[in-house]
């Protein structure tokens, strides 16, 4: 642009002010040039966030395995001695046990979930309404409650034995690998169900109809449908696998008589010893990650190169198979039976613990009352912590779901890329490592002196806690969205962009409504999971503001079992209430097009 002064700008001698200004401008221009080359897009912001909230904390924790001195955890700058106990013969057995647990729990949970999804979404079985309304309660049952409930039923002088049933053979089976696997399967099924059901809703029926028209049986049509759901099936299996191998509480509760070591035991030994032995725990984490690599390799092999993009405007909602009376009865029995096992048992365990003044058996003449509940209402461990946890969970759920939506988009890109593999691995790694590892990684990262020196004082703040919660929830949330994201035909977005919307707008207008319901469910899942989350809460909460899970833990540690479990039950009821309100608001106020996909039938 030429200056209209009749005099060229270069003719005048610039003043010192102008000189410094022009220097600033040229610096700014250079800075701008650098940035325009880097192209700061929303994706760049996303990757930066992933780096700081997920990758770096995990990497720093792993680094301690071979360089303890780096983080002040030992004298050596480099050593491999921490790996020796981890990869010795005895420990190899534990690793193998964890692998087997993960595989069986993953496959089992996915199979049950697939059958449930098909029954609920594709048939008119009467029990489907019952299932839909209780599914959320399943998420809120922590695994130790499930284990506790099993124990109450099957232990010596437990409920069943008092009723006169001969349960010793089952007990011997339960207190060992079979029992652990069953509990983990039960724990994983609700999640697998959500992932698969989400994907099934976006699957039109034309594929199954094509099979039937060409002479295939109903079962063959089912197989085709399952085939098209492969990405979500693998997503579900991978997550249940990773959760199973990272589990500690269940294995420990049920294996105190059996000889069944699991990989995480050594990890917790390292953390609980005095002095704390992080290097061994970190080395154990490497071992767990090696199992994750196996899972991912298997997944990639199965999904190689195929496209599962089936969701578009042409998708017609599938019609339901009408069951015969026998069909209705048998399917309802199956569903109710599963619900009793999956939900009834932990509820029984928890309720019996919180209500009984005396022994753990309902059928004795011990008193049942609500004294514990009336007492904890005024407890310092309930009201303020519950409010704080609710605030944090709201924030964490929102951040987690936003990031998970982007992450699931990366994971479902049809072009295989390094980015995709990287995100895939790190997300699953974050699941496979117990929450306490994650939390310690956060302390390592955000308590570093030099981080404080550059002005970031994040450790001990609610902000960091919220971020940690989000990062903790990110992996499973992303995978729950993978099934849906992978179904949306790419031309949906292309059409929006061509007709005038930029990337973000197109995403909001076109993609988000198609995944509105899955996003809502993912949000609620994260909310309820974060409300009662313990390991990250315990290690990262801001001084003076304990989350409700810490309050429960302190009560239980003080031998106030009745009070502690009462707080837990009340928190769960509160979470269920929030879930119910959210669904009500969605059904009431969301545009009809958003609800069309995946309508409850």
């Amino acid at each position, binding site marked *: 642009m030429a200056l209209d002064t009749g005099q060229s700008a270069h003719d005048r001698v610039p003043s010192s002010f102008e000189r410094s200004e022009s220097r600033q401008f040229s610096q700014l221009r250079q800075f701008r040039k650098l940035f325009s080359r880097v192209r700061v897009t929303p994706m760049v912001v996303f990757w930066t966030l992933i780096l700081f909230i997920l990758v770096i904390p995990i990497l720093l924790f792993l680094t301690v395995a071979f360089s303890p001195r780096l983080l002040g955890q030992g004298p050596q700058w480099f050593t491999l001695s921490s790996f020796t106990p981890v990869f010795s013969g005895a420990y190899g057995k534990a690793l193998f046990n964890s692998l087997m647990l993960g595989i069986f729990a993953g496959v089992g949970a996915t199979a049950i979930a697939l059958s449930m999804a098909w029954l609920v979404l594709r048939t008119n079985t009467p029990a489907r309404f019952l299932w839909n309304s209780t599914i959320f309660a399943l998420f809120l049952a922590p695994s130790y409650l499930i284990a506790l409930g099993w124990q109450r039923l099957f232990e010596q002088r437990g409920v069943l034995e008092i009723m006169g049933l001969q349960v010793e053979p089952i007990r011997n089976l339960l207190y060992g690998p079979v029992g652990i696997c069953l509990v983990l399967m039960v724990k994983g099924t609700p999640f697998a169900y959500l992932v698969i059901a989400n994907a099934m809703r976006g699957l039109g029926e034309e594929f199954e109809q094509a099979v039937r028209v060409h002479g295939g049986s109903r079962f063959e049509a089912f197989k085709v449908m399952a085939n098209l759901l492969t990405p979500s099936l693998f997503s579900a299996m991978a997550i249940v696998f990773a959760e199973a191998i990272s589990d500690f509480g269940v294995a420990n509760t049920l294996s105190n008589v059996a000889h069944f070591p699991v990989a995480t035991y050594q990890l917790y030994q390292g953390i609980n010893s005095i002095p704390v032995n992080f290097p061994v725990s970190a080395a154990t984490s490497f071992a767990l990650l090696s199992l994750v690599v196996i899972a991912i390799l298997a997944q990639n092999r199965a999904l190689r190169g195929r496209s599962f993009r089936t*969701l*578009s*405007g*042409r*998708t*017609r*909602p599938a019609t339901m198979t009408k069951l015969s009376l026998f069909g209705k009865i048998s399917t309802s029995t199956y569903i109710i039976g599963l619900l009793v096992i999956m939900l009834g048992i932990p509820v029984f365990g928890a309720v019996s613990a919180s209500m009984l003044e005396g022994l753990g058996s309902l059928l004795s003449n011990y008193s049942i009352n609500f004294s514990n509940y009336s007492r904890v209402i005024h407890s310092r461990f309930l009201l303020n912590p519950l409010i704080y946890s609710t605030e944090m969970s709201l924030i964490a759920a929102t951040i987690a779901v936003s990031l998970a939506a982007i992450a699931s988009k990366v994971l479902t890109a049809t072009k295989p890329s390094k980015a995709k593999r990287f995100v895939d691995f790190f997300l699953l790694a974050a699941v496979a490592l117990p929450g306490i590892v994650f939390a310690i990684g956060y302390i390592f990262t955000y308590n570093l002196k030099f981080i404080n020196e550059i002005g970031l004082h994040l450790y001990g703040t609610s902000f960091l806690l919220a971020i940690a919660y989000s990062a903790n929830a990110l992996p499973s949330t992303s995978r729950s969205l993978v099934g849906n994201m992978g179904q949306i*035909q790419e*031309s*949906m977005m*292309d*059409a*929006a*962009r*061509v*007709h*005038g*919307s*930029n*990337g973000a*707008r*197109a995403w909001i*207008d*076109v993609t988000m*409504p*198609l995944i509105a319901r899955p996003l809502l469910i993912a949000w609620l899942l994260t909310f309820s999971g974060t409300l009662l989350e313990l390991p990250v809460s315990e290690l990262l909460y801001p001084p003076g503001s304990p989350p409700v899970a810490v309050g429960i833990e302190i009560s239980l540690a003080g031998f106030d079992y009745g009070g502690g479990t009462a707080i837990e039950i009340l928190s769960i009821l509160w979470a269920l209430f929030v879930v119910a309100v959210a669904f009500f608001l969605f059904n009431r106020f969301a*545009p009809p*097009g*958003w609800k*069309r*996909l995946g309508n409850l039938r």
Partner: protein
Amino acid sequence: MSMESTVKAERVVITGATKRYGELAALDNFDLTIEPGSFTVLLGPSGSGKSTLIRSIAGIERLDSGTIYFGDREIAGAGLHTSPEKRDLAMVFQDYALWPHMSAQENVAYALKRRNLDAKESTRRVLEALDRVGLSAKGANYPFQLSGGEQQRVALARAIVGRPSLLLFDEPLSNLDADLRERLRVEIATLTREIGATACYITHDQSEAFALADNIGVLRSGKLQQIARPEEIYRNPANRFVAAFTGTSGSFNGRVDSVREGSATIILGAQKIECRTTNSLTVGDSAEVLIRPSATSLGQSSLNSLSARVLDVAYRGRGYEHVVECEFGVISSVFATQSVARGTLVEIFIDPENCVAFPIES
């Protein structure tokens, strides 16, 4: 009711467009000029690069090198890639790409957002567009409640409602049944001309291309083979590929006997056939004669006729198409108003103006 044209049509100039996928070059140094207001069809088999090209024009794909100009505005070039929403065009997709959570009316209205009209005007135009494609009664329906043809018509309405200066079509008729295809083809042809936009249309269907186009560009392996009016392509295909792809009912191999300006005589066994030629042929060379469907008729034995036996007869309403077999090969699409029984010996007259000889590609 026709739509008024308020559009300033754009000229599209593509120079040196290249796009690679690994080793494969989807577009190879591709040049193309689309005159404003013209209807250009890019014709080619799958893998010829036509999809890549139209998506690059739309901005959904990035070229590795080359430039694209709309009028005198550079849209894509070295270091420059204007995003799709800023190119002010519209596109009709092969799979309709209607958004399942929006009704037909909402789908069409979406394309008007960038025009920033007030609500009343916007609704009027949307209804006008829907009415123009014959779906004013179905505005409230969702895509899954519409048939394939109806969905594509909604997509068409969506494309034209904003009066874009450039309209792109990505094989929009491929997913429709035959009779619908023809009807919608007419819609596309008339609507585009009514609003006066420049149109770029890709397809692999030769008859579709010929029916729609002002200009046809034939693509093969990322390179433009020939661009010309349909008549020119039909009469004077630039090479064997173009000829074969734009309608052949048979081809014979022979030897060049003599060559003149624009025509040649080819020796087929004991016979000689007169035909056109667009390439340089040398006497004595091996040559291939490609025969257009319009070149053949049943007739008497004469110069430029071949003896053949009828293999198949198909009724076409207007008459009969025969497939015949002669000494040198099979000829299909031999038309006659009366049918000739299978097995009959006939004479096939080959019109020298409608068959073309090419050197045999070694």
